[in-house]
C-alpha cells in the first residue's frame, strides 16, 4: 500500500459516496419512468377529476361482464372500495390479461358523459412495492457488506502496524 492507510480510508469513503450517488441517479430515473409510464390512478380519482387526454386507471374486471370479440372486448371495471363501475371498451385483439376478477391497469381516454372508458393498452397491476422491496433487500446489504469488508482491510492493516509483537522475557533457563 503506497498511500498511507488513513488516506486509503478516505479514498474508500469517497468511492462509496460515488457509488451511492450513481445508484441514486439510477433510482431517480427509474422513479421518473414509473411515474410517467406505469403509475395509475384509482377509479374514484378518475370519476372525481374527470381528466382530459390519456390517463391510466387501476381497477378490477367485474365478473360476468366480459365480452370478447374478434377486434374488441367490452367489460365493466370496478374499484374494490366503493361500488363504482364504469364500462370499458378495449379495441384490439383479445388480451390474455383481461380476465374476470383480475386487477388491471388501463391506459386510454375517459368520456365522463357516457361513463365509458376507451382503453388502448392493458397491463397487469405493477405491484411496484415488491420490486422496490426486492431491490432494497438485494442492494442495501450488498453495499453494506462490501463497504465493511473494504474498510476492515484498512483498519486491520492499521492495527497490524501498530500492534507491538509480544516478546517473552528471557527466562533464566535460556542463558547459556
Amino acid at each position, binding site marked *: 500500500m503506497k498511500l498511507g492507510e488513513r488516506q486509503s480510508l478516505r479514498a474508500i469513503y469517497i468511492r462509496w459516496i460515488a457509488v451511492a450517488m450513481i445508484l441514486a441517479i439510477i433510482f431517480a430515473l427509474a422513479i421518473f419512468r414509473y411515474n410517467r409510464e406505469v403509475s395509475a390512478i384509482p377509479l374514484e380519482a378518475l370519476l372525481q377529476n374527470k381528466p382530459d387526454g390519456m390517463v391510466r386507471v387501476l381497477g378490477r374486471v367485474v365478473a360476468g361482464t366480459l365480452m370478447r370479440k374478434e377486434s374488441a372486448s367490452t367489460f365493466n371495471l370496478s374499484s374494490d372500495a366503493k361500488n363504482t363501475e364504469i364500462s370499458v371498451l378495449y379495441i384490439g385483439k383479445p388480451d*390474455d390479461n383481461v380476465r374476470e376478477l383480475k386487477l388491471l391497469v388501463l391506459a386510454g381516454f375517459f368520456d365522463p358523459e357516457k361513463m365509458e372508458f376507451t382503453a388502448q393498452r392493458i397491463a397487469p397491476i405493477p405491484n411496484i412495492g415488491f420490486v422496490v422491496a426486492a431491490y432494497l433487500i438485494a442492494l442495501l446489504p450488498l453495499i453494506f457488506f462490501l463497504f465493511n469488508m473494504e474498510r476492515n*482491510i484498512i483498519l486491520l492493516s492499521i492495527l*497490524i502496524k501498530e500492534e507491538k509483537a509480544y516478546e517473552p522475557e528471557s527466562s533464566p533457563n535460556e542463558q547459556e
Partner: protein
Amino acid sequence: MISASLRGKLWKWSGVIGLLSGLFIFIGLFLGLVVAPPDYYQGEVFRIMYVHVPFAKASLLSYITLFLGSCFYLWKKDFIVDNLCHAAAGIGVFFTSVALITGSIWAKPTWNTWWTWDPRLVSFAILLLILIGYLMLRTFVDDKRKEATYAAVLAIIGFVDLPIVYFSVEWWRTLHQPMSISTRGVSIAPGMLTPLIFMMIGTSLLVSYMLLIRTQMLYLRHLLEAKQGGLLSEESS
C-alpha cells in the same frame, strides 16, 4: 503453494475487477430499471429477475469456488486457500439468502405464494443451511489446521450431497404436488435479456472481487491474531 508475488498481483488487480463489476452492474441496473419494457404477463414485477437470477448464480459460483478450494486445500494444505474457502462460504451465505428472499418476493405476486417445495428452492435452502453449518463449525474448532481440514471435508460432502437432495425432492414432489405452477423462468424478450446479461457479468466479476477482498481480510485477521498471540516469527513480519 500460491506465491506471495502472485498474491500481490491478484490483490493489485482486485481494484480493476471491482471497477469493472461496478460498471457492468450500474449499466445493468439502468437498463433493467429504466430502459427495459415491462413483461406482458408479469408487468413490472419481472424486474426482480435482474437481481434474483444473477444473485442465485453468484451463490452457486461461490459454492463451486468453495468446493474447488476445499479440494485444493486438502491436496496442498495451503492456508491462503483455506482463507479463500472461508471467504467463499461467507459470500455464499450472503448471496444464497438474498436469492432466497428475492425469489420469495417474486413468487408472491406471480404465483400467489411465498414458498413452494420446488427442488430448486429446497436445494437452495439446504445449501444455505450447509454454508451456515460450515461457518459455525469453523468458529467452534480451536486448532487452525484442524478447522481448515474439517471445514474442507464438510464442504466437499455437502457439494456431493446437494445433487442427491435436488433429485430426491424432485421425485418426492412429482408424487405429492403435481406441478400446478411452472417454476421455469419467464420467456424472455430481447429487450429484457440485455440487462440480464450485464447483471450476470457484473455479479460474476463482483463475486471474484469480493472473494479477493474477503480473502485478504481473513488473511490480515489471522496475521493480527498471530501477532497479538506472539505467534509471529521475525521473517514473516
